[in-house]
């Protein structure tokens, strides 16, 4: 048997092609049913997201080319797309490589933004579709569950998903660093730009209690205020509102400073120097950089946020190197589990066969033994079984040993000797 993975992702293929290849849930299910024939392709699973389309199969030994051919044919048929469009972009991974690839995908090491949490859910979804379609079996079930385990280990043992990598989340993260919790805090939105709105939404989700909106034209502010569960306040009395706000998000089209150092000094004194966190997403800037020199006032403009985000991305990539080590060690563990899975039935069958011989012989000779009590009868049976087990034990453990060492020739020899089914 062999594990084969054929597919494209955001690194191998441009979006224009990926979007043509993408499959709906239903298309995945019907496609899997036609692809898996139980003989050449024995098990199958399709992961289709905006960043990747991958077909994972468990294939009979030595049928690699046929499998690849079938998968390409399937992708051509399912999308009515000439194969020349995408064939050159396809990557093919087999066995350990395929296992490694799936582990990396599930752990979000293969994602565009390393550590993003969605991909694991997408793999879960792909698995449940295949499960429903009945195209997974012994090997893929084991493999996918192992992949979930790897993803969990990577998430808990490395900082791969630790720090915010988008500007609006960054606002929440820095806010937490200053205020610990947002309960009872007030956010002031100056201007109603799209980015400010997004950041405000994140803050509300994170628990900010009050939202104040100040906008030059009051209509859009009022609309957004009802949406966010906040209050619209007059723009002209900004200094008053500043003294109430713990977090200020500013994004207007004004080409001058809206919050000046003098305004903020007054506001800061009024709020007894409690800390204030400014996020200035407007270009040109609306908050005088000198405001940041006031004690306990922290001002972040768009450039500051972007540089923090990119340093967080670098930090994630460093953590990803640690995650790769986890993946490698898990591949070894999976290999071992797989070997046990493969040789387990053969060894079990052999043991069963020996015991059956013993029971059969006992039954054959039973008549010649004359009347026996129930204890005597079970005594003889256990005598026979334990003799058979003791005699076969060294052999069976030798078999297990060679299957752990994946010595294919010896395993084959054992099978030949005892005439075992594959």
């Amino acid at each position, binding site marked *: 048997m062999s594990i084969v993975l054929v597919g494209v992702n955001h690194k191998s293929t441009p979006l224009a092609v990926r979007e043509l290849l993408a499959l709906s849930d239903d298309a995945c299910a019907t496609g899997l049913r036609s692809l898996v024939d139980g003989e050449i392709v024995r098990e199958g699973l399709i992961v289709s997201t905006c960043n990747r389309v991958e077909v994972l199969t468990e294939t009979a030994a030595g049928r690699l080319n046929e499998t690849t051919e079938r998968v390409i044919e399937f992708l051509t048929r399912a999308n009515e797309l000439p194969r020349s469009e995408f064939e050159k972009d396809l990557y093919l991974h087999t066995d350990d490589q395929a296992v490694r690839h799936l582990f990396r995908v599930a752990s979000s090491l293969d994602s565009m933004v390393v550590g993003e949490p969605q991909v694991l859910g997408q793999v879960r979804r792909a698995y449940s579709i295949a499960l429903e379609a009945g195209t997974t079996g012994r090997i893929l079930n084991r493999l996918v569950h192992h992949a979930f385990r790897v993803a969990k280990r990577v998430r808990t043992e490395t900082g791969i998903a630790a720090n915010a990598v988008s500007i609006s989340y960054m606002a929440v993260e820095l806010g*937490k*660093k*200053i*205020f610990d919790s947002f309960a009872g805090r007030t956010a002031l939105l100056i201007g109603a730009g799209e980015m400010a709105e997004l950041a405000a939404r994140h803050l509300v989700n994170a628990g900010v209690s009050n939202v104040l909106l100040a906008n030059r034209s009051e209509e859009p502010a009022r609309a957004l205020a009802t949406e966010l569960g906040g209050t619209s306040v007059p723009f002209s009395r900004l200094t008053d509102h500043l003294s109430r706000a713990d977090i200020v998000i500013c994004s207007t089209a004004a080409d001058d400073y809206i919050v000046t150092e003098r305004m903020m000094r007054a506001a800061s004194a009024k709020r007894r*120097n409690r*800390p204030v966190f400014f996020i200035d997403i407007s270009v040109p800037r609306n908050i005088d950089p000198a405001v*940041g020199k006031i*004690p*306990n006032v922290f001002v972040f403009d768009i450039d500051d946020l972007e540089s923090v985000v990119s340093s967080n991305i670098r930090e994630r990539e460093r953590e990803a190197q640690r995650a790769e080590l986890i993946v490698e060690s898990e591949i070894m563990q999976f290999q071992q589990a797989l070997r046990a899975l493969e040789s387990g039935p053969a060894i079990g069958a052999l043991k069963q066969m020996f015991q059956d011989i013993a029971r059969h012989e006992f039954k054959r000779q039973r008549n010649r033994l004359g009347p026996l009590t129930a204890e005597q009868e079970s005594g003889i049976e256990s005598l026979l079984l334990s003799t058979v087990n003791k005699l076969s034990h060294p052999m069976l453990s030798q078999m297990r040993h060679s299957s752990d060492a994946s010595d294919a020739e010896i395993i084959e020899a054992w099978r030949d000797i005892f005439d075992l089914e594959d």
Partner: protein
Amino acid sequence: MRSLLLAVLAAYVVAAIHAVLAFINKRRALQRVSEAALVTGFLLHTGALAADWIIDGHYPLFFLRETLSFLAWTLVASYSLILFRYRARALGTFILPLVSFLVFIAAVTHSETAGSTNPIAVRDTWLFPVHTTLLLFAYAAFFVVFIASVMYLLQERELKLKTFGAIFHRLPSLTTVNEIATSSAAIGLTLLTVGIATGMLWASSRDGRLWHNDPKEIFAALTWLLYVSLIAYRSTAGWRGRRAAWIGVAGFALVLCTFFGARMMGGYHVFG
């Protein structure tokens, strides 16, 4: 009692190492090991102190060895309270290695036998143990103020400069460390005030004088003044942040002078 103290040391070292590793790797499992070891160590330590008291026949806070061990015990108690109240685990990374070090010194130091002051002489009064116990707890509280202040300053600096190092993501928030520093300073000052008062009371009952002009007394008075000003400064205009944190750091330097410096300069307070 040496063997019991060594067991305490082992538990604290395990707790310290796991706290540092948990801080670096951000692993919950390591933190749990650290906390379990800490609880074990603290219980053994309490037992060791009680055993000392019963066997030696005097309150186990007189010789340097005892003082260091007792100080470590107060630090662990303070850290446990902070852990319980604020879940500020990062403090352990800095407190527990110090605790281990103090217990180590205590374990390798031999009891002074030919001291100029016999513990028997201070045995009759309850004032002396109260005086020393309160002051050691005050020192522990001021150490917490110091650590929290340093954490505040580091983070405030990084927020102002907008460059975040590895340590930034591992420390408690500004609000939390500010709260820890403020409440610890208030508790520490209260303990220090009562501690100094009982000391004076005891001294006056001994030789009729409240004040001996001894270096330890002078440093203690300075320390007291500094923390009073810190509390006053914090309460006058609300959140004081950076400057208050600097006072917290400076205050601890004075505490160190009180604790060690005075010992070296001699005077009335010849012991621990």
